[in-house]
C-alpha cells in the first residue's frame, strides 16, 4: 500500500511539472491545445493527491503501524474520529494535506474561470503548477508520509491535547485559509504574465480571497476558543509565534480585500494590490514554515530540520519571482488616476491599508526579532506581550475608528457639510457612551475606554447606513420596511455583508477590551468549607471528588458560586492524570453568564493530598462577545460570498463574455 501512496505522489509531481512547463510554453506561444492539456494535468494532479491521501487514511483506519507516520501519530486506542486529527497532526501529513487542498482549489479555480477568462487561465495554470511542484517534491524527496518500518505492536498515540473537536476543525480551517490565498496569488501573477493590467484577475478571485480570509479568521477564533477552554490559563491569545503566523496573512488579506475595491472602482492601487497579494501568499507560506520548522522554539533545531531550508528557499523564489514580475510590468500597472481628496472613501481605504500592513510588519518584526537580534548582536533577545499590545493599541484603535468613518465617506470627495450630517449621530452617541462609561469607572484602562467609545461610533454608523439604505429603497421601490431591508441587502451583498463583518469585528473588539482591560484575578488556598470573594461573586469550596475514567484519573474540586444572595450553580475544576501518556491536564471550569457575556473562570492550580486546593479565579467581562462575533463573522462572510446573478451579468457586460457560462 505504501508503494501506491509513493507512486501517487510521484505522479502528482510529474503532472505538476508538466502543468508548469507545458503550460508556460503553451501560454507563451499561444498554443491552445497544449494549454488545455496542461490544465488537465493540473486537474489530474488533484486526483493523484486524493489517491495518496486515501492510502494514508486507509493505513490509519487499519492501524497499519508499518507506516512510520501512522505509528508515530496513532494507536489502537485512538478513536477513529481522531485519526483525522492525526492525519494532519504531524509534519508529513500536514504537507500532504496542503497538497490536497492546493490541487483541489487549483482544479476548481481553473475550471470555474476557463470560459470567462481563458487567456488568464492559460497563465494561471503554470503558476499553480509551480506551487504544486514544491509541495509534491517535498513529499516525494524530503518528508515522505509513506516511509515504512517493521510494524510495532502499537503506535505512540496522539497527544491528548489534540484529542478534541477543536483540534479536529481548527487546523483544517487554517489550511483552507493558507492554501486558499494561493489562488488570488496565482491569478495576480497570471494576469501579469498574460500582460493584462486590468481588474479581471481581481474579479475572478474575489470570492476565493474572501473565502480564504473567512476560513483563516474563523480558524484562528476556534484556536483561541481551544486555548481558552482547554489550555486553561484564562486567556485566548498569547502572541505566540505560531498564532502570529496565522494572524499576519489575515491582516494582509484584510488590507487586500479593501484595496481591491479601490482598484475596481477607480483603477488605482494596481501595483499595491499586486504587492499585497504576493505578500499574503508569502506570509501564508511563512506561516506554514513557522508552524512546521521549529525555527523559533530553538534556532538550533533549524539547521537540523530538513524542511526549514527548503521552505526558506521556496519563499525566497516566490518573493524574487513576484517582485521581478511586478517590476517588469510596471508600465502596465501605472495609473493616471490621482487621489481627489484626503477625505474620500478611497483615501480611507488607503489609511486602512497602511495601518493593516504596518501592523502586520510590526508583528513580523516581533516574530523575527530573536533571529535578527542574534544575527546583529550575538545576543538572542525576544519581545513578548507588551510589545504586541502596544502596536495593537497604536494601529488597532485607529483601524477600529476608520471602520466607522470610512463607510460614511463618499467616493472621490466628501464635503464638510455631508460630513457633519452623517457624523452627527455616531459622534454624539459615542461621546455619550464614553462619558457614561467614564462615570462608571471604565477610565481605569484608557485603551479600553477608547475601544468602547470607538466601537459605539462604528455600531451607530453601521445602523445609520442600514437605516439610510432601507429608507431610500423604500422611497424608490415603494416597498414595506422588511422587504426594502432584505432587497437592500440582496442587491448589495458585498457592501452590507461587509457591514455585518464590521459589526462582528466591533463585537470582537468589545470582547477583547472587556476581558483583557477590565478582568479581575484572585488566588487563594482553600480548605473544604472556605470561601473566596471575587468581584461580587462568592466562591465556596465544598469538597474533592475523585473518579477513574477509561484512560485518566480525574480529580475535581466542587465549588459553589453565589452572587449576592442568589446561587449561580456549582463549578467543578480539577485535573486529569493520564498514566499512559504520563501527563497531567488542567480541567478548568467556566461559568458563563449569557446575558452579560461575563465568565467566571476557575482553575484548580494545585490539589494537595489533604484536600487543600490552590485556586486561581478570574472574572472576564464580555468575553463571550468574542465567540458571538465568530458567528456574526460567518454570517457576514456568507452574505458577501453569496452568488449574485445581477453582479455576474454586470461583470459579463464589462469583460465581454457570456454570463450564462460564467
Amino acid at each position, binding site marked *: 500500500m505504501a508503494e501506491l501512496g509513493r507512486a501517487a505522489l510521484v505522479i502528482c509531481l510529474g503532472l505538476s511539472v508538466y502543468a508548469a512547463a507545458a503550460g508556460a510554453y503553451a501560454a507563451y506561444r499561444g498554443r491552445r491545445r497544449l494549454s488545455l492539456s496542461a490544465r488537465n494535468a493540473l486537474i489530474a494532479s488533484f486526483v493523484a493527491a486524493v489517491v495518496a491521501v486515501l492510502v494514508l487514511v486507509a493505513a490509519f483506519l487499519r492501524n497499519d503501524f508499518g507506516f512510520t507516520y501512522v505509528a508515530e501519530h496513532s494507536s489502537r486506542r485512538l478513536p477513529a474520529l481522531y485519526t483525522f486529527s492525526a492525519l494532519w497532526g504531524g509534519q508529513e501529513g500536514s504537507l500532504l494535506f496542503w497538497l490536497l487542498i492546493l490541487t483541489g482549489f487549483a482544479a476548481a479555480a481553473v475550471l470555474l474561470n476557463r470560459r470567462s477568462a481563458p487567456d488568464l487561465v492559460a497563465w494561471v495554470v503554470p503558476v499553480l503548477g509551480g506551487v504544486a511542484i514544491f509541495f509534491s517534491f517535498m513529499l516525494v524527496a524530503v518528508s515522505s508520509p509513506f516511509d515504512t518500518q517493521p510494524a510495532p505492536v502499537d503506535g505512540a498515540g496522539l497527544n491528548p491535547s489534540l484529542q478534541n473537536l477543536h483540534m479536529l476543525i481548527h487546523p483544517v480551517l487554517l489550511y483552507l485559509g493558507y492554501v486558499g490565498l494561493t489562488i488570488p496569488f496565482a491569478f495576480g501573477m497570471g494576469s501579469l504574465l498574460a500582460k493584462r493590467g486590468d481588474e479581471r484577475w481581481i474579479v475572478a478571485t474575489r470570492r476565493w480571497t474572501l473565502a480564504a480570509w473567512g476560513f483563516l479568521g474563523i480558524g484562528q477564533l476556534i484556536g483561541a476558543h481551544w486555548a481558552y477552554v482547554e489550555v486553561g490559563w484564562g486567556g485566548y491569545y498569547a502572541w505566540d509565534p505560531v498564532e502570529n503566523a496565522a494572524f499576519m496573512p489575515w491582516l494582509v488579506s484584510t488590507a487586500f480585500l479593501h484595496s481591491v475595491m479601490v482598484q475596481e472602482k477607480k483603477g488605482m492601487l494596481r501595483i499595491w494590490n499586486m504587492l499585497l497579494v504576493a505578500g499574503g501568499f508569502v506570509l501564508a507560506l511563512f506561516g506554514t514554515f513557522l508552524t512546521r520548522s521549529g525555527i523559533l522554539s530553538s534556532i538550533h533545531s533549524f539547521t537540523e530540520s530538513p524542511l526549514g531550508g527548503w521552505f526558506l528557499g521556496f519563499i525566497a523564489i516566490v518573493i524574487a519571482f513576484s517582485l521581478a514580475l511586478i517590476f517588469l510590468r510596471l508600465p502596465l500597472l501605472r495609473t493616471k488616476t490621482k487621489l481627489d481628496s484626503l477625505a474620500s472613501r478611497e483615501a480611507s481605504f488607503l489609511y486602512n491599508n497602511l495601518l493593516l500592513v*504596518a501592523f502586520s510588519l510590526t508583528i513580523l518584526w516581533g516574530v523575527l526579532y530573536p533571529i535578527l537580534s542574534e544575527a546583529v548582536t550575538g545576543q538572542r533577545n525576544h519581545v*513578548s506581550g507588551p510589545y504586541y499590545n502596544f502596536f495593537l493599541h497604536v494601529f488597532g484603535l485607529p483601524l477600529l475608528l476608520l471602520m466607522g468613518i470610512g463607510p460614511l465617506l463618499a467616493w472621490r470627495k466628501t464635503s464638510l457639510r455631508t460630513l457633519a450630517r452623517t457624523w452627527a449621530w455616531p459622534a454624539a452617541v459615542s461621546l455619550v457612551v464614553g462619558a457614561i462609561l467614564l462615570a462608571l469607572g471604565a477610565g481605569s484602562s484608557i485603551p479600553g475606554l477608547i475601544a468602547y467609545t470607538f466601537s459605539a461610533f462604528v455600531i451607530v454608523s453601521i445602523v445609520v447606513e442600514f437605516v439610510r439604505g432601507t429608507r431610500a429603497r423604500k422611497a424608490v421601490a415603494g416597498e414595506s420596511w422588511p422587504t426594502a431591508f432584505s432587497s437592500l441587502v440582496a442587491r448589495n451583498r458585498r457592501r452590507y455583508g461587509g457591514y455585518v463583518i464590521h459589526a462582528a469585528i466591533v463585537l470582537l473588539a468589545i470582547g477583547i477590551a472587556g476581558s483583557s482591560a477590565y478582568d479581575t484575578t484572585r488566588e487563594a488556598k482553600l480548605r473544604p468549607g472556605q470561601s473566596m470573594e471575587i468581584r461580587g461573586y462568592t466562591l465556596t469550596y465544598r469538597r474533592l471528588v475523585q473518579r477513574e475514567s477509561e484512560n485518566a484519573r480525574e480529580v475535581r474540586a466542587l465549588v459553589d458560586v453565589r452572587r449576592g444572595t442568589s446561587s449561580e450553580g456549582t463549578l467543578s475544576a480539577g485535573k486529569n492524570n493520564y498514566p499512559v501518556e*504520563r501527563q497531567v491536564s488542567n480541567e478548568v471550569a467556566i461559568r458563563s453568564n449569557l446575558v452579560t457575556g461575563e465568565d467566571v473562570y476557575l482553575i484548580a492550580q494545585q490539589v494537595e493530598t489533604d484536600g487543600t486546593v490552590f485556586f486561581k479565579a478570574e472574572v472576564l467581562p464580555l468575553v463571550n462577545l468574542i465567540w458571538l462575533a465568530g458567528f456574526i463573522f460567518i454570517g457576514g462572510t456568507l452574505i458577501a460570498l453569496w452568488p449574485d446573478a445581477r453582479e455576474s451579468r454586470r461583470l459579463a457586460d464589462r469583460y465581454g463574455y457570456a454570463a450564462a457560462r460564467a
Partner: protein
Amino acid sequence: MRLALALSIAALLAVFLLYTSIAGGGTPSLRPSQLLANGHDGNRVTLSGKVVGHPTGNPGEGGLHFRMRDVNGTATVAVVYRGTVPDMFRTGRDISVDGRLRNGVFVGVKNTLVTKCPSKYSPKKSTS
C-alpha cells in the same frame, strides 16, 4: 502611490523609534549554559531548556523546584517557580520561563512558564 509608500515608511519608523525608546530592546533568551557563563545576575531573562530531575515542591506556595538543562548540552541550573504550570510540564519537556538569577538559583517570574508543544516542534527524526 509614492505618497502612500512614503507615508507608510514614515509611520513605521516613527512608531519603531517610539517603541524602542520607551521599552528598550526586548528580553534576552538564554540557555542554562549561557546564563551561568554570562552572569546575568539580577537582569530579567528568558531561560529555555529541558526539565531534568524530579520537580519537587508546590507552585502555589513555596515554589516548584526543578533543574533545567541545555537542550543539547550538560550545563544545568536550579529553578524555583511559582504560578500556573502548563499541562505539558514534566521531566524531559522543553520549556521556557522568565526570571532572574539570584545566588545561583534562577527565580522564575510568576505565570511565565511555557512548554514547547512536542507535536508541533518534533525534533529531528532518528528513523529518516
